[in-house]
C-alpha cells in the first residue's frame, strides 16, 4: 500500500506557451522521467519540444481509407453486378462512373473515423475519466489560460522535492504534486441500476416520440423533389397532345419490335399455332425464368396449382400438370397467356413473344417431369 502515497507527477504552471516551451528545453534531459504538457489549446511546436516521435495516425488513416475504398468497390460490384443486377437509366450494369461517388464517400468515412476515433480512443486513450490530473486544483487553470508541464511517473517513485526545485528553476509560477487516482472499486448495484434505467428511459422516449410524431404529422414529407415532378402518370390526361390524352396509341400501321400483332380471336383459332422455339436446354431455362417469375405465384412452382398467392385469395388456379390441362395444345396455352382467362389477367405486356413460347415449353417439361421415363435421365437426353 506504499504506492498510493507515491506521487503520480510533479506539475509546474506557466503563464505563456513560450514560457512552457522554454521550460521544456531546460527540464528535458535533466530527469529520467516522462514529460507531459497540459495546455488549453494546441500549441505550435510543442510536439517538437517534447521530442515526440512521428504520430502513427497518418498511416492508420491511409490504411483505413484504402480498406474503405476496397470495401466500397467490392460492395458495389457485388450488389450491382452479381447479386441484383439492375439496369438504371439504360447504363451498363457495371458502370464505374456510378460507383465513384459511393467509393469516394466511403473512403472519406473510413479515413475520417480512423482519424477521429483512432486519435481519441487508441492514441490518446480517452475518455480517461479517472486520470489523476482531473482531481487537481490546477486543472481549472489549465483548461482556461495557464500552461502546465508535468514530470510523470510510469510506476517508479518520484523525488518530488528535487523535481519541484527543477521546475521552479525553469520558471514555474506554481508547483503542485499530483496524487495518483485511488484504486478502482467494483461498480455499485445502485449505479448499475441507474444506468440501465436511464438507457431504458431513453429508448422509451425515442420510441414514443417517433410513434406520436408519425401519428401527428403523417404528411410532413422531408424531401419532395422526386415526388413532385412534371411527369405523366398512366391513364392521366395531358394538354401537350391535341386529343388531351396522356397515353399514346401506337402509330398507325406499325408494330413494336419483337412483338408482332396477335391475330387469333378465340382458343379454337389459336389451336393451330405451333411453338416456334426448339426444345433446347437454353429455351427451357428461359421458360423456367419466365414461369417462375410470372406464373408460379398462382400455378405453383411445380405447376400443381398451389402457388403462394392461392391461400391469400382463395382462388383455384388451373393445375397445369393434371387432368384437362394436359390435353391442351401449345397454341391454347399460348392463347391464355396472351389474353387471360377467368380471374387470370392477360400477360401479353409482361412477357415477350419468345418468353411466352419458352414458358409453354417449360409447362410441358413440368408435365413430363411428373412421370418421367428412365431415358430422360440419361446423359444427353433432351
Amino acid at each position, binding site marked *: 500500500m506504499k504506492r498510493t502515497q507515491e506521487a503520480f507527477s510533479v506539475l509546474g504552471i506557466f503563464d505563456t506557451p513560450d514560457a512552457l516551451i522554454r521550460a521544456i528545453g531546460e527540464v528535458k534531459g535533466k530527469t529520467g522521467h516522462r514529460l507531459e504538457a497540459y495546455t488549453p489549446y494546441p500549441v505550435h511546436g510543442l510536439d*517538437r519540444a517534447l521530442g515526440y516521435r512521428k504520430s502513427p495516425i497518418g498511416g492508420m488513416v491511409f490504411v483505413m481509407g484504402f480498406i474503405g475504398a476496397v470495401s466500397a468497390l467490392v460492395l458495389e460490384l457485388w450488389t450491382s453486378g452479381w447479386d441484383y443486377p439492375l439496369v438504371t437509366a*439504360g447504363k451498363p450494369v457495371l458502370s464505374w*462512373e456510378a460507383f465513384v461517388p459511393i467509393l469516394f464517400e466511403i473512403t472519406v468515412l473510413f479515413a475520417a473515423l480512423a482519424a477521429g476515433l483512432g486519435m481519441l480512443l487508441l492514441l490518446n486513450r480517452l475518455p480517461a475519466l479517472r486520470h489523476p490530473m482531473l482531481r487537481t486544483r490546477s486543472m481549472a487553470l489549465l483548461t482556461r489560460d495557464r500552461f502546465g508541464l508535468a514530470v510523470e511517473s510510469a510506476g517508479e517513485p518520484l523525488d518530488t522535492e528535487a523535481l519541484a526545485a527543477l521546475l521552479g528553476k525553469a520558471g514555474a509560477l506554481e508547483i503542485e504534486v499530483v496524487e495518483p487516482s485511488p484504486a478502482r472499486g467494483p461498480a455499485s448495484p445502485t449505479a448499475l441500476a441507474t444506468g440501465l434505467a436511464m438507457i431504458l428511459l431513453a429508448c422509451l422516449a425515442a420510441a414514443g416520440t417517433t410513434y406520436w410524431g408519425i401519428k401527428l404529422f403523417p404528411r410532413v414529407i422531408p424531401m419532395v423533389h422526386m415526388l413532385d415532378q412534371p411527369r405523366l402518370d398512366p391513364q392521366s390526361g395531358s394538354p401537350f397532345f391535341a386529343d388531351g390524352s396522356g397515353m399514346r396509341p401506337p402509330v398507325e400501321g406499325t408494330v413494336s419490335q419483337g412483338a408482332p400483332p396477335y391475330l387469333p380471336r378465340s382458343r379454337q383459332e389459336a389451336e393451330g399455332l405451333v411453338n416456334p422455339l426448339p426444345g433446347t436446354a437454353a429455351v427451357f431455362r428461359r421458360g423456367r425464368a419466365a414461369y417462375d417469375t410470372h406464373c408460379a405465384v398462382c400455378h405453383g412452382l411445380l405447376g400443381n396449382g398451389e402457388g403462394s398467392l392461392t391461400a391469400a385469395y382463395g382462388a383455384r388456379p388451373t393445375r397445369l400438370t393434371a387432368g384437362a390441362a394436359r390435353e391442351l395444345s401449345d397454341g391454347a396455352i399460348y392463347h391464355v397467356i396472351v389474353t387471360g382467362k377467368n380471374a387470370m389477367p392477360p400477360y401479353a405486356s409482361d412477357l415477350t413473344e419468345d418468353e411466352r413460347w419458352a414458358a409453354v415449353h417449360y409447362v410441358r417439361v413440368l408435365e413430363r417431369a411428373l412421370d418421367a421415363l428412365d431415358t430422360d435421365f440419361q446423359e444427353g437426353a433432351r
Partner: protein
Amino acid sequence: MRGNSRQVTMLAGALGLAGVAAAFFFSARERFWINWVLWFLFLLTTGLGSLFLVALEHVVGARWSVPLRRVPETLASLVLPMGAAALVALLSLGTLYPWTSAEGLRDPLVAGKAAWLNEPFFALRVAACVLLWAASYRVLAGGSRRQDRTGDPRFNRRARRFAPLFMVILGLTITVTAFDWISSLEPAWYSDIFGVYVFAGAFLAGLAATTLFALHLRGAGRLDGVGPDHLHNLGGFLFAFTVFWSYIGFAQYMLMWYANIPEEVFWYEARLEGAWGGILLALAVFHFLVPFLVLIPRAVKSDPRVLLRVSLLMLAMHWLDLYWMLFPSIGGAPVFGWPELSFALLFLSGGILWVRRIMDGGATMPVGDPFLREGLEFRL
C-alpha cells in the same frame, strides 16, 4: 549567371515571337487564334488564382503566409498584360466562335442565347472583367507595395474588407470568362459548374506558380526566414486542391454521363474520341492521381525538390487541361507543332520576364506589413 539566364529567356521569347508571327501568316487562322486564347487564358488564370490566394490570406487573417505574400501578389500582375491579350483576342471572335455567324445562329439552341452571345455585349463583358481585375490588383497588390514604404497598418484593414468583395468579383468574372472564352466555342453546350471547374484549375495553377516562384526566390536567398513549415502549408494547399479540381471535374462529367442529354454529351463525346480520350486519362492520372499520392506523406509536403517537381507538373497539367477543353473545338486530332511551340516560348518567356521585372522592382517580402514578424515566426 542571373543575367545570363535572363538573356536566354529573352532569346527564347524572341524566337517565340518570330514563330508566332510566322504562325499568323502561314498556319491556319483557327489554329493561330486557338493558341492565342489558350495561352492568354493559361497565364490569366494563373494570375487570378494567385490573386485569389492573396485575398484568401486577408479574408481568413492568415499570418503564416505573410512572408510569402509578395510572391502571389507579383504573379497576380499577370492579369494586366493578359487583360490586354484578352482584348487582342477579341479579333478571334469571327474565326473561332460559331455564334458570330448567321449560320451558327440557325441552331435553335444557339439562337436562344443570342441575347448573351453577341459581339458588342461580349466585348463589353471582357472589358468589364479586365477593368475589375486591374482594379482588384491595384487594391490588393498595389496597396501592399505602397505599404512597403509607408508601413501604414490601415492597409491591412482595407485589404481585409476588400478581399471578400474580390472573391465575389472573381466568382462572377471567372464564370463569365469560362462561359465566354471556352464553352461558347461550342455554344450549344452548357454546364452550370463549368465556371467552378475553371476556377479550380486556376487556383491550383496559382498555387503551383506561387510554390515554384517561392522556391526559386528561396534558392536564390531572397526569402530569408521562409522555412520548411511555410513550404509545408503550400504543399498542403496543393494536395487539397488536386482533390478539389478532380471532384468538380468528375461532378460535371458524371451528371452529364447519367443524364445523357444530346446537347450536353456531345462536348464530352468529342473529347473522349481517339487521342483526346487518352489526354483525359492523362489528366486523371497526372492532374490528380500522381500529385495526390505523392503529396500524402507529411515530410514530402515541405521537401523543396518534390514540391518543385509537383508544381511543374501541375502547371503542365493546367496547360493540358486548357488544351483538352479548347482544341477539340477546331476539329481533328490533337496537334502539337511549331506554332504551339512558338506560342509556348513567347508567352512563357514573356510571363517570366514580366513577373521578374515586377519582383525586382521592390522588396521580395511585404516589409511594411505589421504581421510579417509573426509570419516569419510561424511554426507548425
